[in-house]
């Protein structure tokens, strides 16, 4: 049985995994880079070991350093979280070679699914529909141009080793193809250490719906229903919810079965996610499988009532699944908002910096998975996500109202955040009605980027607060200066002495 787990990650997910370990009585080993000495996961872990310099490639992607710490600390298992080494087959293989349990699937499933091109071929064989696109890796410009002239614009360029929107670009004009191709490659190299990319036909007005699955080492596979992830910016999810407003019971059953078939096709083990693109008329295509825990897993946990990290650990221990498909039900509705350190008004530019003040929301039906604290500096080297805010309600309406309330309570100063922007999404008619697709942010531009009026009194109050703060600051400063004069006692003493001498 696993008694000690090394968490090969940072940020909120490292803390979240450690929480489940703590509940299970498992000892946790954190790892950190130069930039992360003061990070929350280092403080929360039972043990924390240094693994290298700040850039990911030298620390959180550094397999040798991580394996070395695992051995020296005596960890039985490594939980990779998401991102970094979580979908690296070489790492999974290396762990098993070194006699350390990798909490996740074996190298075969990761290689097959992680290489998006092989995944597509495997899905076609298992009868799961896929999006038209390249069948091999694109390395040179001519091939990229050739593929696009075959399948037509618009296309998506994606990192073959990718996920989480990194190294992903939408191309609408032929002129943009090559610059985008090179940027995608460069981003992919930085984020995953592999610069292979592929091209896929871009589906217009798509819904992004994914299915959570769990598979044990005994061939049992279940799905934990869907997550609707269509609200995205820069192809990165912003808001996720379950159940999907688009879903019908029939479609859920069908897609759930396909998701299980997809997992079985690669003899999957652990928690995984099958992502689909769904059109307005409910045609669905396999997009990719994420062979790891997802950022948005908490909405599933809340509605289905399962701790996914605990299930991952049980599976890694060789135990059979704790549930059968028929045991699982969706109860109520859950929404997750990702709080980013970024400036929505300035093209979502990342905004690293020092957290001056933070108040996290509390109360019934609210969960906040974060890692920052007052005085913490968000480093420039990693993801700009500060936390995930999850609300639950008996109905979708209640979950939305609760999310609005929680966002109202959420206060972060020091860095720019997406909180106000998320509040506007919660008020957008298209979101409230549940009729939205991945173009939601573009299409609701007017609503989302127009600041709310707060009336003359409110504007005046804003000025008054700034004014009072300024004059109080001035007064303090003057006070200090005056005190300063009084306390320069040596001069006074010298003068007195001179007087006495005479």
């Amino acid at each position, binding site marked *: 049985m696993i008694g000690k787990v090394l968490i090969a990650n940072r940020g909120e997910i490292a803390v979240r995994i450690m929480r489940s370990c703590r509940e299970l009585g498992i000892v946790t080993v954190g790892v950190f880079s130069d930039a992360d000495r003061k990070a929350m996961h280092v403080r929360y872990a039972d043990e924390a070991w240094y693994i290298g310099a700040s850039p990911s490639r030298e620390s959180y992607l550094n397999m040798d350093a991580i394996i070395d710490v695992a051995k020296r600390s005596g960890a039985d298992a490594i939980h990779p979280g998401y991102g970094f080494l979580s979908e690296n087959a070489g790492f999974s293989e290396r762990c098993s070679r070194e006699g350390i349990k990798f909490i996740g699937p074996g190298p075969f499933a990761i290689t097959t699914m992680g290489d998006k091109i092989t995944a597509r071929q495997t899905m076609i064989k298992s009868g799961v529909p896929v999006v038209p696109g390249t069948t091999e890796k694109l390395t040179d410009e001519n091939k990229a141009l050739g593929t696009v002239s075959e399948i037509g614009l618009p296309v998506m360029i994606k990192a073959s080793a990718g996920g989480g929107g*990194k190294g992903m670009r939408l191309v609408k004009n032929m002129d943009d193809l090559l610059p985008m191709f090179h*940027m995608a490659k*460069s*981003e992919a190299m*930085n*984020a995953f250490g592999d610069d292979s990319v592929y091209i896929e036909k871009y589906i217009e007005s798509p819904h992004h719906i994914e299915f959570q699955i769990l598979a044990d080492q005994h061939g049992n596979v279940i799905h934990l229903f869907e997550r609707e992830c269509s609200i995205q910016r*820069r192809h990165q999810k912003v808001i996720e919810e379950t159940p999907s407003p688009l879903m019908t019971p029939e479609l859920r059953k069908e897609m759930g079965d396909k998701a299980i078939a997809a997992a079985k096709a690669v003899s999957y083990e652990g928690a995984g996610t099958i992502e689909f693109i769904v059109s307005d008329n409910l045609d669905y295509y396999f997009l990719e499988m994420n062979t790891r825990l997802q950022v948005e897993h908490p909405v599933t946990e809340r509605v289905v009532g399962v701790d996914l990290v605990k299930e991952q650990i049980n599976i890694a221990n060789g135990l059979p699944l704790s549930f059968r498909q028929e045991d699982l039900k969706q109860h109520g509705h859950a929404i997750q908002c990702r709080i980013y*350190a970024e*400036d929505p008004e*300035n093209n979502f*530019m*990342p*905004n*690293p*910096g020092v957290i*001056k*003040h933070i108040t996290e929301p509390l109360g019934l039906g609210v969960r906040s998975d974060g890692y920052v604290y007052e005085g913490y500096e968000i480093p*420039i*080297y*990693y*993801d*700009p996500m500060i936390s995930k805010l999850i609300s639950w309600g008996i109905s979708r309406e209640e979950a939305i109202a609760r999310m609005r309330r929680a966002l*109202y309570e959420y*206060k972060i*100063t*020091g860095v720019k955040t997406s909180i*106000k922007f998320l509040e506007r999404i919660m008020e957008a008619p298209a979101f409230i009605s549940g009729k939205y697709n991945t173009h939601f942010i573009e299409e609701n531009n007017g609503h989302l980027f127009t*600041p*709310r*009026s*707060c009336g003359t*009194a*409110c*504007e*005046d*109050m*804003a*000025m*008054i*607060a*700034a*004014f*009072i*703060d*300024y*004059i*109080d*600051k001035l007064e303090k400063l003057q006070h200090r200066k005056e005190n300063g004069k009084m306390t320069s006692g040596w001069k006074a003493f010298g003068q007195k002495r001179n007087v006495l001498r005479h």
Partner: protein
Amino acid sequence: MTYEINIESRTAKIELLSRAGTKALIAVDGHKYDIDIVMVEPGVYSILYKGNSYNIELIGGDTSKKYIVNTFARTFNTEIVDAETKYIRSRSKGLELEGDDNVASPMPGKVVKIPVSVGEAVKTGQTLIVVEAMKMQSEFKASGDKTVHEILVREGDTVNAHQIMIKLK
């Protein structure tokens, strides 16, 4: 005590008429507000006015006179205008700021690539520098057909927010 305050595009005259404890009487453009104001947490003010409760957060700007002010509904950029500010402003015409000819990053990050060199003629929209922060690369482009006058950073350098990286002419 009277100051001018810029709030977004509006300039208002603000005057402290009286103050005792948390109570204050303040006139904004002649409109008198009888308020109860207290700093409840560092940078966070609670104001009570006519029974309404306002929670207002201040984030310090580039200078001690600038604030980003968060109210429930929206965020404002404000600046206290005093004699010193006015004086600096009258002289600032010749000062270097982020402008058409100066390329600065709005966020801290790392310089990934500088595909141009000093003296090179560049065209509108041509990439001058690529900066990466939080795994996201941003390209900074030429604002017009110009010449690269000066390059103040090197590839691999870490830059601060608003630091000028390249000057054009």
